[in-house]
């Protein structure tokens, strides 16, 4: 079966910095993959490559078999790749409703968009904030609004960059539930630092280090891997 997203020998250079090195990465339809790595491992750059915000120096990105390596920045979103960025990226001057409606409206009629926006607000638990200006919300609520913005367009592939960052334990647990619920219909790639959160949601984990994939395995094996512990958790192998 064709993977929903695949990269082949993906490389990107920023001047003298080799930010992504020969990355070969595959995610199947409806899979949930977590990507971990220390700061500067190239996780956010990798997401930027997948969403057309950064062009690869060499290599290929295939979305459902279609080469999207050289697309304009708006085209991956149109094809069906949704992203929640590391720093919440919302329309701060618009209401929560308008933020989600704009996403739904791109692919739906006006009537459908109203219904989808209402349903999405319920899914992410933000109905009470529908008329609140997005820029006035607290960080955790903004994260949920952005997840709502992404899922309202019903994309086959969703990229979530640190969805639980800055959240309380209760909020983290609720976000994990939400992600597992979204995963029933969508493939997800989740970048996260919080290992407890990874344990809650992950079925397979990819480890990035200095722009390259060094390991791909089940969460428990990744956590106990000496190399991962050394480079990610800062522990020396015994």
């Amino acid at each position, binding site marked *: 079966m064709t993977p929903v997203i695949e990269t082949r020998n993906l490389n990107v250079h920023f001047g003298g910095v080799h930010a992504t090195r020969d990355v070969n990465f595959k995610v199947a339809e409806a899979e949930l993959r977590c990507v971990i790595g220390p700061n500067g491992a190239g996780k956010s750059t990798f997401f930027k490559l997948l*969403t057309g*915000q950064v062009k690869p120096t060499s290599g290929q990105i295939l979305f459902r078999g279609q080469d999207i390596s050289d697309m*304009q*920045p*708006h*085209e*991956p*979103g*149109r*094809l069906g790749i*949704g*992203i929640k*960025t590391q720093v919440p*990226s*919302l*329309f*701060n*001057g*618009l209401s929560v409703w*308008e933020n989600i*409606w*704009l*996403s739904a*409206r*791109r*692919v739906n009629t*006006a009537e459908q968009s109203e219904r989808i926006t209402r349903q999405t607000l319920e899914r992410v638990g933000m109905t009470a904030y529908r008329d609140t200006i997005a820029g006035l919300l607290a960080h955790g609520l903004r994260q949920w609004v952005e997840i709502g*913005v992404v899922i309202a*367009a019903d994309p086959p592939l969703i990229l979530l960059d640190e969805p639980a960052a800055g959240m309380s334990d209760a909020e983290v647990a609720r976000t994990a539930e939400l992600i597992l619920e979204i995963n029933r219909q969508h493939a997800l790639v989740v970048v996260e630092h919080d290992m407890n959160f990874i344990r809650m949601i992950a079925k397979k984990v990819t480890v990035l280090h200095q722009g390259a994939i060094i390991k791909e395995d089940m969460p428990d094996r990744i956590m106990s891997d000496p190399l991962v512990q050394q480079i990610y958790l800062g522990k020396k192998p015994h």
Partner: protein
Amino acid sequence: MSAALSFGIGIALLLGLPGVLDDYTLIQITIYAVMSILGVSLGFIWGFGGILCFGQAAFFGLGSYTYAIAVMNMGDSTMPFLLAIAVPAVFAMILGYVIFYGRLSDVYMGVITLTVTLILFNLINSTAGPEWKIGSAALGGFNGIPAIPTLNVPGQPDNVLSPKGLFDLTFVCLLVVYLGLRMLISSKIGRVIVAAKENEQRVLLLGYDARAYKLFSFTLGGAIAGLAGCLFANWGAFTSPTIFGLAQSAQIIIWVIVGGLGTLVGPIVGCVAIQWLTMQIGTQQIFNSNLVLGAILVVFVLLVPRGIVPSLGSLAEWTYGRLRRRKASSSMPAARAGAAPAMAAAEEST
């Protein structure tokens, strides 16, 4: 302001003013309405599209010159009227394509639009010789083009508009532009234009081509400014390179800042207020009008940065909130007084 209210006020002014005002005042109000259309064009692309164009005067001037040249060659004013809108629109589309599809930053946007305006100013200014003619229309260089034929009833070149007819047409144009833009802003296209101003990156990530939406709003702004230019040429039967000048470009920006960015009524209020003030200052010899305009701009930027209309809106909301709170607190003792006998009765019954 609601669309119905705006429409009602517009129609009332359109029908009521000609009956109570003399021709001179009517002509004065016509120029206010012409310039208001120009102000709204910038108010739309800047306030809602986030595009600070320093060269809105370029499209205004192009509309004015296009009408003048075309009507002098064609006689009937129907096609020149349409050309005066189409030519600045196409010019704005080409300029916008280079800027938006070339992914130039906002700073370059300002520099390019200002430079284009000044190039047009110098270009038209240097066409004074008799060899500078397009058909039967002499461009006239710094002297401008005088005796521009007034708009006529379509298909009847001899049936030209009276001052009242021009007032009616200008007011209808202002009303159509205002209500049309209101409808556009509340549509899907309008919401995306506003969203792109808020966060262009997010618009792209959602799959909207932000460049196309910006180009559309910029082109529409050019077309509206062209319409204003055409009406301006009709108002005075004259046009000159000064309308491409720095002063004109700066004035439009001041109207929008003073009236209120992010509203469509604001640029109209700002335009009328500043135009009226400029005219009043012109009747005396003590103050220089440019100095006063500069002072007003500084005062508004520092003290009323949101402009007249949004500030009045906030003031009205604040006053209404205070009145509601006062009403609520004054009704509380009465409520308590009313509750007291009931409580006493309840105590008695227990």
